[in-house]
């Protein structure tokens, strides 16, 4: 019997391949001691060298599998010859070796005697039968065995499919699910033991359908990617670039599994690796990992395979503007009607790929998933789509779309002649009239609406990922302005959320936040800043808010991780410019207004710091510039691991002036040894001057944006819960704001000179421009407390004045203005 409070003190991953090593990385991200097993290298003096090598590689992989490169040291490299005995102490053992049933069977026989009494053993297979694998284990072990299917890259992809075998003990699976959700931060879907489970089965069929229709309509790969990317709510890498990223060999293998195992499937004829794909695999053009696949990067140009010309061509295809307009229509019902009605091949293609996907999902739902929600979430979390197939179908008008699919089946347009299952029309005639409803999602086995899992772990998710059709009400409003909403969930903790685009901060947000703090001080025990979706805040918007705030679809998880793949410097800069959307204010020469706004910003930061109730920032995603400064001024930050925090103002020729420099200087002074803050400030200077963006909450601690006491959590859907608990704990501990420090030692003139000493060498070496030198010198000036005798004691207001003055001085320079304008226009940095 497994204890319900299943704790993983130590884990092991068997197999140090791409997935195995990255799963081990994510386990140490979650602070779990992990062993990584690989075959021994008999020739090496260290038989565990192969595992050690895989761990070493983790440090260089992009996107980073480790939240901190130093965590690699917490993965212990081991081998099957010497270390099987260590498995006894592991509470969780995940097998992730190559997809060969004979190899897996051999391994299971070898390790079974060493597994601990309560160890949960799980396979990360993506294609093999869990029941077949279970047969390789002694009977007494099978109740603790299941499939645990991670998606690549495992740190970033939210989905884990959990697949029981016939003998799996449900309580074991429940305990494991609770662990995976809270401690690894994953979205768990229970799948059935069918080939490729849910996400790959549907996702790969979708790719096959796209290949089929692209050929039929004569559309090139790059055009298809334009049609099947962000315009239809899927990742920017769309179809074929995703295939290149995944690896064409992997894709072929998955298609092969479907071909070999799904003989009775009505779509079996399509489970074929197209000749062109096979040819690419045969010549070793496997996609990104081999530098060439469906796409090829030549210099800075992207070239794409052209099947007609049998070679690579510059990727130049463009969408028909009519189609683009059509796809940007807000009303999905109208959009789908227009797609189907259009005779344009691009429109017909889009209708066809949706039609066949809907058809496929409807026919297979009962066999592969417990309910429609599981299928939709699996695709969202595993493939990064904004909506699952059933959701799309539902919002496009279930009845009408069903009718069209039926017509197309009848007229032979669809890929399969199999009729739609009866439930598709049954739910339409039932009172609920949808696949996802407030009561739950359709489950074919019970022919009823199945509500969400009742496992206790989900009580921590106050607002889980919601599907179209599921209503969400964010508590009760305390007050609401155009810029913010203050609300509560029926207890004594108040929550404030921003309504601005990317949750940027303008004067209205500042005023709203001010009102919220005052309200909290009067009537509530604590204040939590939490956004209903990421980011936490992209920073200050100094442009006077003349336009109505718009609501934007949050970027999908996949887009977010793709963004990180790009050179961080560039995206950091762009974000920095966006966060300081100054163009208008500058053109109007409104420096005085900007200064007033900066002053307000600083006042608000200080108010967060010294309010009479505890303030807690619940951080997820980006927290840039002013957003970062709010985080630094709250009593606590609770951050998801995937928080990207940074003071990025220097990227566009400015410096943090909402209390950020002050707070960093204060922290350096607190950590000063022998009253000398300079050794700390040297690092602080680099962080600010290089506009360093932390790539995880852990790194944000290293850079000094977060404090050691700020909890880092793994699951963003648990964030509000965790933040509220922290807020309450602070309130219950007899909260008083800290006393304002009045004797902060500064590095003064010597500190500034020493930093200038570094800068002047970079200037002389032409690594930085005169303007870079000026920006660096200003940052040094503020962080070191100005031109004072070293060791002089100042207060917070001293630093705040320096911040304001330096910010306005930089803003007044033509070169900073040119940088901001350039970055806003091009998204790229300007060196001037």
């Amino acid at each position, binding site marked *: 019997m497994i204890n319900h409070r299943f704790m993983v003190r130590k884990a092991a991953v068997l197999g140090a391949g791409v997935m195995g090593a990255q799963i081990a990385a994510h386990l140490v991200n979650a602070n779990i001691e992990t062993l990584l097993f690989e075959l021994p290298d008999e020739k090496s003096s260290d038989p565990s060298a192969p595992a050690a090598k895989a761990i070493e590689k983790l440090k260089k992989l992009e996107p980073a599998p480790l939240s901190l490169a130093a965590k690699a040291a917490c993965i212990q490299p081991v081998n099957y010859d010497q270390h099987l005995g260590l498995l006894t102490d592991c509470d969780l053992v995940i097998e992730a070796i190559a997809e060969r049933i004979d190899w897996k069977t051999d391994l299971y026989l070898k390790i079974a005697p060493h597994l601990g009494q309560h160890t949960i053993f799980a396979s990360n297979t993506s294609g093999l039968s869990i029941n077949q694998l279970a047969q390789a284990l002694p009977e007494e072990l099978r109740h603790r065995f299941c499939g645990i299917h991670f998606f690549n890259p495992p740190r970033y992809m939210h989905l884990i499919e959990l697949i029981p075998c016939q003998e799996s003990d449900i309580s074991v699976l429940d305990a494991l699910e609770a662990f995976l959700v809270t401690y690894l931060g994953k979205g768990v879907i229970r799948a059935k033991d069918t080939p490729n489970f849910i996400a790959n089965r549907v996702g790969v069929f979708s790719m096959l359908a796209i290949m089929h229709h692209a050929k039929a309509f004569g559309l090139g790969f790059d055009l298809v990617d334009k049609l099947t990317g962000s315009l239809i709510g899927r990742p920017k890498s769309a179809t074929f670039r995703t295939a290149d990223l995944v690896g064409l060999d992997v894709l072929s293998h998955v298609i092969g599994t479907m071909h070999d195992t799904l003989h009775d499937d009505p779509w079996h004829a399509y489970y074929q690796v197209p000749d062109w794909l096979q040819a690419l695999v045969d010549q070793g053009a496997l996609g990104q990992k081999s530098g060439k696949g469906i796409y090829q990067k030549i210099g800075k140009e992207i070239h794409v395979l052209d099947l007609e010309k049998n070679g690579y061509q510059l990727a130049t295809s463009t969408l028909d503007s009519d189609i683009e307009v059509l796809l940007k229509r807000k009303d999905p019902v109208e959009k789908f009607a227009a797609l189907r009605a259009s005779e344009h091949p691009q429109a017909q293609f889009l209708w066809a790929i949706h039609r066949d996907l809907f058809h496929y999902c409807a026919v297979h739902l009962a066999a592969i998933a417990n309910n429609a929600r599981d299928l939709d979430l699996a695709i969202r979390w595993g493939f990064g789509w904004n909506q699952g197939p059933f959701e799309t179908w539902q919002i496009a008008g279930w009845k009408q779309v069903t009718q069209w699919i039926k017509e197309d089946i009848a007229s032979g347009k669809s890929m399969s002649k199999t009729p739609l299952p009866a439930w598709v029309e049954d739910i339409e005639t039932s009172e609920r009239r949808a696949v996802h409803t407030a009561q739950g999602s359709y489950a074919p086995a019970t022919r009823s609406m199945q509500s969400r899992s009742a496992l206790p772990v989900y009580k921590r998710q106050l607002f889980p990922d919601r599907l179209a059709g599921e209503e969400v009400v964010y508590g009760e409003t305390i007050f609401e302005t155009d810029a913010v909403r203050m609300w509560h969930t029926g207890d004594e903790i108040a929550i404030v959320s921003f309504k601005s685009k990317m949750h940027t901060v303008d004067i209205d947000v500042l005023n709203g936040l001010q009102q919220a703090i005052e309200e909290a001080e009067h009537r509530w025990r604590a204040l939590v800043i939490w956004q209903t979706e990421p980011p936490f805040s992209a920073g200050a918007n100094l442009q006077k808010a003349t336009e109505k705030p718009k609501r934007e679809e949050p970027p999908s998880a996949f887009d977010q991780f793709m963004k990180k793949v790009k050179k961080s410097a560039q995206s950091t800069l762009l974000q920095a410019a966006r966060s300081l959307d100054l163009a208008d204010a500058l053109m109007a020469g409104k420096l005085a207004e900007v200064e007033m706004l900066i002053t307000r910003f600083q006042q608000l930061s200080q108010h967060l710091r010294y309010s009479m109730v505890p303030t807690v920032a619940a951080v997820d995603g980006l927290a840039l510039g002013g957003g970062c400064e709010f985080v630094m001024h709250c009593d606590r930050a609770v951050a998801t691991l995937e928080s990207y925090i940074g003071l990025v103002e220097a990227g566009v020729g400015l410096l943090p002036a909402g209390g950020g420099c002050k707070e960093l200087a204060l922290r350096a002074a607190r950590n000063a040894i022998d009253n000398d803050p300079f050794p700390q400030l040297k690092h602080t200077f680099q962080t600010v001057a290089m506009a360093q963006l932390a790539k995880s909450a852990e790194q944000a601690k290293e850079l000094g944006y977060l404090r050691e006491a700020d909890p880092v959590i793994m699951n963003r859907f648990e964030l509000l819960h965790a933040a509220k608990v922290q807020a309450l704990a602070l309130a219950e501990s007899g909260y008083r704001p800290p006393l304002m420090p009045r004797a902060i030692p500064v590095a003064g003139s*010597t500190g500034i*000179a020493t930093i200038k000493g570094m800068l*002047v060498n970079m200037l002389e*070496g032409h690594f930085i421009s005169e303007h870079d030198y000026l920006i660096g010198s200003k940052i040094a000036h503020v962080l070191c407390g100005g031109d004072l005798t070293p060791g002089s004691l100042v207060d917070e207001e001293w630093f705040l004045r320096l911040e304001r003055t330096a910010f306005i001085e930089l803003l007044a320079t033509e070169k900073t203005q040119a940088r901001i304008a350039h970055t806003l226009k091009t998204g790229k940095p300007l060196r001037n």
Partner: protein
Amino acid sequence: MSKQTQDAYIVAAARTPVGKAPRGMFKNVRPDDMLVHVLQAVMQQCEGLDPAAIDDVIAGCAMPEAEQGINVARVALLLAGLPDNVPGMTINRFCASGLQAVALAADRIRLGEADVIIAAGTESMSMIPMMGNKVAMNPAMFIKDENVAIAYGMGITAEKVAQQWKVGREQQDEFAMTSHQRALKAIETGEFQQEIAPYPVEEKRPDLTSHEVKVIKSVKDTDEGPRADTNLEALAKLKSVFAANGSVTAGNSSQMSDGAGAVMVMSAAALQRFNLTPIGRFIGYTVAGVPPEIMGIGPIKAIPKVLKQVGLHQDDLDWIELNEAFAAQSLAVINELGLDRAKVNPLGGAIALGHPLGATGAIRVATLLHGLRRHHQRYGMVTMCVGSGMGAAGVFEAL
């Protein structure tokens, strides 16, 4: 007019092999311990010398702090077992510290105020970084433009020398290549054997499974810097590190190093008293100042100055140990003065052999005197450029 009353002779000159910093063979060896080692080495070479007769120990060190702080000369001489009556002082003229120590020792003897002095130098660049543990610039440097160059790193000054003296990237790389080739050949033919006092390294490491302290011992007797795998192609691929699109690279600059050297200097009276035979005679030494932003040309001023002082001609010199701070400045000096490439650093220089700042002068005096003797040559020079804009040069005669 010379106030010299007697000659100063060198009786013994020894050094540690030079390790690479900050990750080389001496990365965990303390610079004061290295100094102890070379003091003991020269004492051993002076059999019959009464240690109580030593008038002073002068040690050069460019960053005299932390492990090489608190007057490392006095600390090390006591740890080396020399008697309490022997005094010690640490001196600093950056890269010329070790040579300056020899000159100071010789001058005390030449004035007749001392008879036996050990001159030395020690530096661990692994333990004490280039500008010391705490860099704290004077704000005044940035008030007047003319003073900014004090803040310049050495690399930038090398770029400026390369530009002004028109020393191209290829020439620099070729010079670096020669340095490695000469050093490797010298090691192979045992040229350094006489001067090197092999150093026993002992490291204590934890065995985290057995909870025991593992003692790892080894003896180091060869310079770590020279690379057999260096070639012009590889050198050409290196990026300039001090300036964007510059010509100074890690490959054509001196290596950061750890090491120590010591030289026993005596009067003729002391030689006679302790029945010792000299290996060389100190002839003269000088320093000269140049603009800080082109500090690498220091020897251009110092070499003619010292030659004039001692009444020798450049051609009289058989061997010149020119510290290769950078290939750029070495070539500027060689070209400007018309030095004979064959006579300059015949056993390789700091680009291959390393440059443990304050120790280099004492180390290269050992190389020079032993080399001159082995090759039956007479006059030699040790010279170097010095940070913030100086040049130093010392002239010796082998006996």
